[in-house]
């Protein structure tokens, strides 16, 4: 007979191991390499669409993309392995710290326009694989563009204060009692896909309104709104079928024939559109389980 405490330990070990099992291998056959697995993580993160200046045909992941916020315009950074302007001199620990703690190798704090409040929830395995993938990207010696943000918002000290007030680091923990598919969807949406970073409205402080999760924001990253993607029928996506949702994430096509534009079109084209159907189904199962929130954004 296993003692109660040992049973508990076994359960704890299984539970702790669970986040690793959330990583579904999208490639069949022999065990994929970390970089190959990392590419799946990369797609699930929207192809890191904030780091390529698609509109001006900028080189892949070499930065320069303007991201408009109420605090000013930030420019996505060069995340290619270029040693001078990119992440060439970083090691994996640097990358993990940036993604999970919002801190640069030199100790300075990142502005939360870099969505580490979501990425902190990623598993260490996924982050390690993502790092392996990023190392395979072509290095581009393109300097980062300084952010166009007025003081005090451009002071790094402010980012440290913001973090102290609003940032809680820590990985995603699957809630017991939920099926694996739901947990996978919850992980993809809240951690890797970081949908809430654009689709959740924020307070004046820039902190997301927790009770309005995914209910849409007028202040999206291009100064345009990000729609309500809770399953509310009138103001959200409650009237979309499963096929509508999956098709949208694969192609950017709305049920009524409209098409996604701008950054959303880019993260679909370079990211979510490349996900396997199992992952897309997991996302939709999770989204449909959320509380429908009435939030009309139209003028």
């Amino acid at each position, binding site marked *: 007979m296993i003692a109660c405490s040992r049973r508990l330990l076994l359960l704890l070990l299984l539970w702790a191991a669970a986040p690793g099992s959330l990583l579904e291998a999208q490639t069949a056959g022999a065990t994929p390499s970390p970089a190959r697995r990392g590419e799946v993580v990369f797609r699930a993160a929207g192809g890191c669409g904030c780091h390529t200046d698609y509109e001006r045909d900028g080189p892949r992941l070499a930065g320069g993309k303007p991201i408009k916020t109420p605090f000013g315009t930030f420019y996505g950074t060069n995340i290619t392995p270029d040693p001078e302007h990119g992440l060439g001199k970083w090691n994996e620990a640097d990358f993990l710290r940036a993604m999970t703690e919002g801190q640069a190798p030199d100790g300075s704090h990142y502005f939360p326009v870099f969505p580490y409040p979501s990425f902190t929830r990623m598993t260490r395995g996924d982050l390690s694989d993502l790092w392996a993938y990023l190392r395979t990207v072509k290095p581009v010696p393109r300097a980062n563009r300084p952010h166009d943000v007025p003081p005090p918002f451009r002071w790094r000290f402010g980012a440290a204060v913001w973090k102290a007030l609003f940032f809680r680091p820590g990985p995603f923990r699957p809630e017991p009692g939920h099926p694996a598919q739901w947990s996978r969807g919850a992980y993809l949406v809240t951690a890797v896909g970081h949908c809430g970073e654009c689709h959740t409205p924020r307070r004046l402080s820039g902190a997301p309104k927790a009770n309005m999760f995914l209910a849409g924001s007028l202040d999206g990253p291009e100064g*345009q709104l990000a729609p309500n993607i809770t399953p509310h029928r009138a103001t959200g996506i409650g009237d979309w079928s499963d096929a509508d949702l999956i098709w949208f994430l694969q*192609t950017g*096509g709305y049920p*009524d*024939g409209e098409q996604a534009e701008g950054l959303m079109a880019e993260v679909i084209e370079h990211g979510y559109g490349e996900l396997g159907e199992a992952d897309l189904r997991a996302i939709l199962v999770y989204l449909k389980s959320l509380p429908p929130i009435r939030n009309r954004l139209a*003028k």
Partner: protein
Amino acid sequence: MKRTSKGIWALSFVLVLGFFLALFFSTPALADNPAGVIAYRQKVMGAKSGHLGAIGQILKHGLSYTGHIEGHAKALVHLAGLLEEVFPEGTGKGKTDALPEIWSDRDGFLKAARKLKSEASNLVKVAGSGDRSAIGAQVKKVGKSCGGCHKNYRQPKKKRYAWKK
């Protein structure tokens, strides 16, 4: 009568010339009322999203109507061709989501309209193949050209009067 007077010839000349001048100068475009043009072109835009949405429904539900896709794509080619005509000067105000750049950056606008026409033409070509995956890939390109034009020449959702959510 043995001899027609010079006056009758002169009158005849003036009448015939006047007839052709009237024909020449009464081109309908100058007389169109802007609200009507706006309402008409919104129907044209709606027709485009109708056809593209129809193709999307065939593909996303795996319907047996792949034979219909070519016709929808041909309609898209035709409608895209109309774009160049339905944004005349003086139709940028009122119940429209058209941005001023359509007129201030006419070249860019025309380029975007022609891009749609070209991608829709490619869709016509691939539609006959029955290869859902190739058709899907081309539908994505058509969609991208819709979004590419809208991004620069249509009001964002925040200000769009025709977006209801």
